[in-house]
């Protein structure tokens, strides 16, 4: 699903920052992967490279067997449609209802309105928000907002979900609910990559853990814990 070959990313500027150094990585279809490491270790840079928000300074990246380096600018939108995003800060549109927030993602990829009307309520039911369709984000709890975000991420049936600290702003119980939801989605075959600081969660779920430090992979374990 995701392959990185000798990938380095250097930010040029007054101070040169080597965010990633010589990363080699292979994530298979259907995997559930945690990216862990201290702040500034390169987790966010790695996820940004995977969705082609940025290009690497060196190396090759393949996602779904396509080279992101050789991808043309106008092909990027179509590539992104295969990926769902979940953020720590949710990034919901505050002046739109729950329904509109999710429908928005389908409209953006030009889905016919009949399909939108059918699919959005179904997905919101799946994440447990079927009675919140007309609510606005500020009327919801943090956990509920994150569920909206997840609904938005999966509504277009992505092959891959990239989550950046999805439980970073949530209390432990709510975090656990959200993580269970992600695991359920993973069971349906969607590859999930989650960057996180949530030690307890990682230790409890026992999935593949990739640990980054100073831009390098320092550990890559199947069924790993937060620390070695």
């Amino acid at each position: 699903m995701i392959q990185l070959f000798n990938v380095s990313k250097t930010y040029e500027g007054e101070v040169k920052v080597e965010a990633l150094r010589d990363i080699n990585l292979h994530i298979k279809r259907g995997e559930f992967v945690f990216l862990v490491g201290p702040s500034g270790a390169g987790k966010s840079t790695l996820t940004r490279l995977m969705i082609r928000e940025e290009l690497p300074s060196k190396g090759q990246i393949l996602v779904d067997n396509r080279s992101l380096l050789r991808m043309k600018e106008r092909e990027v939108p179509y590539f992104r449609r295969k990926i769902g995003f979940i953020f720590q800060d949710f990034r919901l549109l505050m002046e739109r209802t729950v329904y509109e927030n999710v429908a928005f993602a389908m409209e953006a990829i030009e889905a016919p309105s009949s399909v939108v009307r059918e699919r959005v309520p179904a997905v919101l039911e799946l994440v447990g928000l079927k009675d919140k369709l007309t609510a606005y984000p500020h009327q919801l709890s943090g956990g509920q907002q994150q569920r909206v975000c997840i609904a938005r991420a999966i509504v277009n049936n992505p092959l891959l979900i990239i989550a950046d600290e999805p439980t970073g702003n949530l209390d432990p119980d709510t975090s656990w609910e959200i993580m269970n939801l992600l695991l359920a989605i993973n069971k349906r075959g969607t590859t999930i990559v989650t960057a996180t600081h949530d030690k307890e969660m990682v230790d409890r779920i026992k999935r593949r853990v990739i640990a980054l430090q100073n831009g390098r992979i320092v550990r890559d374990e199947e069924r790993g814990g937060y620390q070695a």
Partner: protein
Amino acid sequence: MRLSSLQYAVRDAFRSLKRNKVMSMASMATVAISLLILGCAWLLVLNTQYLATTMESELEINAYLQLDVPRDKALAMKKQLESLTGVAQVTFVPKEEGLKLLEERFGKDTDLLKALGGNNPLPDMYRLKTKEAPQVPLVAEEVAKIQEIEKVRYGQGMVEKLLALTNWLRSVGVVVIIAVGLAAVFLIATTIRLTVFARRREIGIMKLVGATNWYIRWPFFLEGMFIGLTGALIAVGTLHFFYSELVKNIALTINFLPIMTDKAMLYEVYQYLFIIGTALGAMGSAISLHRFLKV
């Protein structure tokens, strides 16, 4: 583009218009004002041209013969005059008729001939019309060269002045229109920029979920075009109202002043105003999108 996507774009465009109500209305007003100025200038130019053509068609050359040219020789000159290039019509006005015309001008009861002691001092005259107005001075010059011709007269300078005025109006108009048009484009660009800023979160998410650039751009273009179109509508409405009133009033008071009332020509002007308004809107959007929406 799918029909439903167009639907989304229209919905989003109107949502933005509502959100930036004041700016949107200011932009519409600017477009309306610039198009109104354009329309006025345009109608003015059309009318000056119309006036020029009307006057030109009435323009003729009076060629006075020497007093001692015998009548048969005078009549024979008609062929010679007709053979000049550019001449459309040649009419002989004998001095008797010239005197009659003069008497008419002074009043019916005057007997000029008697007053002048039975002696008609007027020369015979030829009245010439040219095929086209600019030929008038050239033909006049040719006619003046003929030996038997004493003097040549025509509305020297009138046509030239009128045509010069038309040209001057046109160039001033163009400058004013470009200036006001730029102001309109700038204001629309500012409005669209506000919209872009108001929607930058939305745009960011759109990009992430895989919206194409054109899908993102469309609502902004529609918004700009709608502003332009509404401005044009206001301008055309105002222009039509006042021009109709003007035509009515001129017909009532100074009816000898020719005024352009050709419906087809008016509608053509209106049609162009609509097109220009929409284009101004699209242009304003394009500038803002290019500068502030890196998609």
